[in-house]
């Protein structure tokens, strides 16, 4: 009996993923290897400061590097194809393949230069922090069926509140405590209008962003500039080194010598991920986001749960906003979130509405952002603007389904009114 060619959606996705990876690897071999005109040494620096030194520097010929990594990528994609055939997961292979392509690209882009590799990763993590907070806020809302376009506003409100309160009290802790409350207040508007008045959540989120941008910019000009000493000169958090962990080569200084906000982020991501898939709350949340009527029929209070989750989201995003002020520069600046809320939304979508996926996407976007910064200093063949576009293009590709279509939770954005007229 011949095997029937009906594949489950998961298998189809794996197949498309594996083959896309293969095509990209070959493209990398051609683009970064064969077509590379001049070759020059590339140096990777791995040392940040005083961690145990495993490797210090690594220099290799750029064309050889591109060839080597591209071939590695091709091997990984072949491995992925084999695993797909055997109906196994291909996550590891995809990650390794993607990483190899990235390294091939780096060899090409930084030919003749030095890349501060550890610094690159550390910077990427820092740039990802607000994205991750924002994306988690998105997960909380959208998994329970409320679209959250207002992430930008929630971040900005958090940044403002944290900056101002920290400045007034000269105490970062107060800033950290108030920021989530500010985010939650913004969420309250979203929750009331979306759940109580059943208003289109996209429009609503959009308007909330305008409102927060207007409010913070207004107060910034009216109070924060003229009375800068009292209102806008807050202290900033100092990094806390975690004993032992921070001494791990390469990863230690990147992940474990950070401010409290980053550690809180680790905890929040872990808690949200575990709760969503391992607790009753998570099961309820997913149920409500998928099929509110069914959820109601088994006794879940749909709108209560949504309301609570939207407020939680505000708390998370607000705390993320604090990163901009007390977590980084101290002073608040007009529209200082600069569209990060929308990249967070992109990360949420690109990560298929799953917490871990969103974190990965946020890290990737943060990395692209930082890479762009680093390369624009060292000089590169690609205009930095195009690298800045990368997250947005990636998201469009994700939603248009050229590499496996992503779908939002089924009831995302649809208000629930019991016994209503449908």
């Amino acid at each position, binding site marked *: 009996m011949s095997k029937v060619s009906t594949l489950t959606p998961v298998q189809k996705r794996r197949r498309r993923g594996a083959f896309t990876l293969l095509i990209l690897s070959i493209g990398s071999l051609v683009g970064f290897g064969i077509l590379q005109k001049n070759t020059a040494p590339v140096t990777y620096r791995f040392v940040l400061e005083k961690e145990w030194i495993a490797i210090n520097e690594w220099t290799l010929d750029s064309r050889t590097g591109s060839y080597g990594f591209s071939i590695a990528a091709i091997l990984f994609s072949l491995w992925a194809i084999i695993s797909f055939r055997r109906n196994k997961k291909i996550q590891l292979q995809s990650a390794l393949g993607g990483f190899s392509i990235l390294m091939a690209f780096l060899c090409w882009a930084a030919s003749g230069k030095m890349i501060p590799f550890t610094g690159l990763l550390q910077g990427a993590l820092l740039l990802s922090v607000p994205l991750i907070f924002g994306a988690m806020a998105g997960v909380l809302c959208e998994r329970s069926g409320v679209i959250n376009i207002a992430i930008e506003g929630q971040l900005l409100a958090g940044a403002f509140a944290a900056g101002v309160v920290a400045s007034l009290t000269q105490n970062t802790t107060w800033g950290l405590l108030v920021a989530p409350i500010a985010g939650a207040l913004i969420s309250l508007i979203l929750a009331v209008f979306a759940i109580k008045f059943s208003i289109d959540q996209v429009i609503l989120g959009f308007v909330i962003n305008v*409102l927060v941008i207007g409010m913070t910019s207004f107060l910034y000009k009216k109070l924060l500039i003229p009375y800068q000493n009292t209102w806008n000169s807050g202290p900033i958090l100092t990094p806390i080194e975690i004993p032992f962990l921070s001494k791990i080569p390469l990863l230690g200084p990147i992940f474990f010598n950070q401010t409290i906000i980053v550690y809180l982020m680790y905890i929040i991501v872990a808690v949200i991920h575990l709760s969503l898939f391992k607790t009753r709350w998570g099961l309820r949340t997913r149920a409500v986001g998928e099929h509110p009527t069914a959820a109601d029929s088994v006794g879940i209070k749909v709108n209560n749960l949504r309301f609570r989750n939207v407020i939680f989201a505000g708390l998370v995003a607000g705390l993320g906003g604090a990163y901009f002020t007390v977590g980084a520069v101290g002073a608040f600046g007009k529209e200082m979130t600069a569209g990060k809320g929308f990249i967070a939304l992109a990360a949420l979508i690109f990560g298929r509405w799953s917490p871990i996926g969103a974190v990965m996407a946020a890290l990737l976007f943060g990395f692209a952002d930082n890479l762009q910064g680093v390369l624009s200093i060292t000089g590169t063949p690609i205009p930095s*603007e195009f690298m800045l*576009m990368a997250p947005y*293009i990636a*998201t469009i590709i994700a939603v248009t389904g050229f590499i496996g279509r992503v779908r*939002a939770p089924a009831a995302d954005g649809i208000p629930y009114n019991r016994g209503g007229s449908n």
Partner: protein
Amino acid sequence: MSSIKNKVSETMRAITLPLLAFFLAILSGGLLIAFSNPEIYSLWKSPLKFLSTGFASAGDAYLALIQGSIFDQNLTSKNFLLGFYPLSETFVIAAPLILTGLSVTLAFRAGLFNIGAQGQFIFGAIGASYVGFHYNLPPVIHAVAALLGAMLCAGLWGGLVGFLKARTGAHEVIVTIMLNYISIYFLLWLLSTQTFLRKGRQDPIAPPVQENAQLPKLFGIDYRINLGIFIALGVAYLIHILLTRTTVGFQFRSVGANTLAAKTAGMSVPFVMTSVMVICGALAGLGGAVQVLGSEYALTAGVAGSFGFDAITVALLGRAKPLGTVLAALLFGALRAGGLTMQANTTTPIDIVLVIQALVVLFIAAPTMVRAIFRLKNVKSGTDMAAKGWNG
């Protein structure tokens, strides 16, 4: 007789809500202005003084707002008519706002939410600027060519959204948000290329558009008001005709009302979605062209300002009707123009305008709330903001 009466009461019902919402927003904005004045807090002890100071600071700000948007006595020293300079400014800002607003309005009517007016505006500005500085053409023809160039660039950019939505079902909101950022970076890159670099300058500004391509000023060089406002009004009328009196418009509205039913009625939904978004793009692009050819005369990194985003509040306040959009754009144009004067003359930052804009839309979106505040019964609440999901 009774039909006229009906019509009047119908119109009254239709505009009551926006007017009340606007009133509430102005009121809230006033409170914000009053309470953000730090001096007021030292007057807690004497309530009368407290109130009057608060009232005065809000009043001053709003007075400056009106001065900056309609008529300014201080400018009349040489010539009384010069006092209307602010009104000219209002129209200058309103023209692109009408066009971008129409872009959002038309999309709404076809069931699409065009957040991408900002990006389409940028592409229009690019097209207009390029045709405007790169070619040498006779008067009139050059301006027309630049306008068409803008509509073409932006129309394609907008059409891409419709195409992707029709072909893959990708939600237009997500796509347009992403395309907006892509447009901005594209513009930044373009301004760093040789073609778009102005001779002798290093900052991101394109060569000036040639005189032949500029839109003529209407009342001499003292006023910046230009043909743009008439283009905008003319286009608004055309969109009104398109929507209410043509078979194509009928199809647009049908798709907006029920995509499935339109499909079973034999209409080609992919075609309608794509063509609607092409027109929406062209409209927003025309806005960009009017901005570049009528008042800025050069492409800069910040050419789009927040026109594309204001357009959304404009369309929402205008209840997704062309006439409403025009009125809303004039109102917001006045707020913007006046806001600049307000910021210069009083200590009130222009950003209060954003707050007012957002509040107006919030209040309109929640008719139940406004009704409760004013104890009204007979207010028409639009269905234009009924929710739909990510997957729909």
